[in-house]
């Protein structure tokens, strides 16, 4: 009976061992990102200060998720879980802001 099951799942965890180089490269990218974030906050970039801080933070998070958390080698289901979480978070942000950003609009 269990033989049929083996067709669906492999016997041992499919362990993809990431190389040391990748880990260190990611680490340096994160460190540089931190320094750039700090530096960017000290200079006046007009309206771009906030977006740049957000973009760098997002890139750093994506690096950690993909490499340190091995999502890049994970099943499609893991991808779905990760993407869905951020999608739902997006729903919370977008619809809440939909209220706050339109409160000032005048009724014509």
């Amino acid at each position, binding site marked *: 009976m269990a033989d049929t099951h083996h067709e669906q*799942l492999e016997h*041992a965890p499919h362990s993809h061992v990431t190389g040391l180089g990748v880990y260190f490269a990611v680490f340096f990218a994160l460190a540089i990102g931190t320094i750039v974030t700090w530096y960017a906050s000290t200079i006046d970039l007009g309206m771009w200060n906030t977006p740049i801080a957000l973009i760098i933070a997002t890139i*750093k998070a994506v690096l950690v998720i993909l490499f340190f958390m091995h999502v890049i080698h994970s099943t499609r289901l893991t991808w779905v879980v990760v993407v869905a979480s951020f999608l739902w978070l997006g729903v919370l942000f977008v619809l809440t802001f939909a209220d706050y950003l339109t409160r000032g609009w005048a009724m014509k």
Partner: protein
Amino acid sequence: MSDIAAGNEHHHHHPFLQHHFEDLGQQHEASTLGMWMFLSTEILFFGGILCAYWIYRVMYPEAWALAAHQQNALYGGINTIVLIISSLTMALAVRAAQLGSRTWQLIMLFTTLIFGSIFLVVKGIEYSMHWHEGLFPGSHFTWHEHPALAQKVQLFMCFYWGMTGLHALHMVIGAGLLLWIIGRAWRNDFGPEYYAPVEIMGLYWHFVDIVWIFLFPFLYLIHGVHHG
């Protein structure tokens, strides 16, 4: 029909294979998937307070910039680097488990714990400074620099303490889990066949790191202080 007992015994049993799983592959898949599900709840947990933070940040940009300016970006920056290092060592600990090296697992897990503790110590120093400066919200809150924005600075400080506090709480829990994992690694529980607990520990630790990656610019580095 085959013998009923045969279904349970016709492949070798790893000591950590639980009875209701068919094999370690299924068990590993289930536990990492479970951890990812847990992390998605964590994303929405921190996401909720971040959403509130951003609503007010858009409403009160000057107060937010002014309040973030009160934070010690040097401590925040050092802590960011400390956490990134601990994330690296955590990832290397998982790798050591995958490769079956008990020595490297222990070294890396222990380093992770040390850096996690450094983070908490630095955070504690900051907390103590803010406490003495009167920057804890409530009846003892004191703020003279820009009285008109005092209320909103206090609102910011609610977020500062709330968000970093929840993050620090996660760090403390993580450190506790690390101790447990170190114990198991000491007993040489993990190897190429079975390393799911180390992997899950890693997922948690990296997640906590990611939270800080966002908190650092949000709480310490807001550009745009206009000193009137």
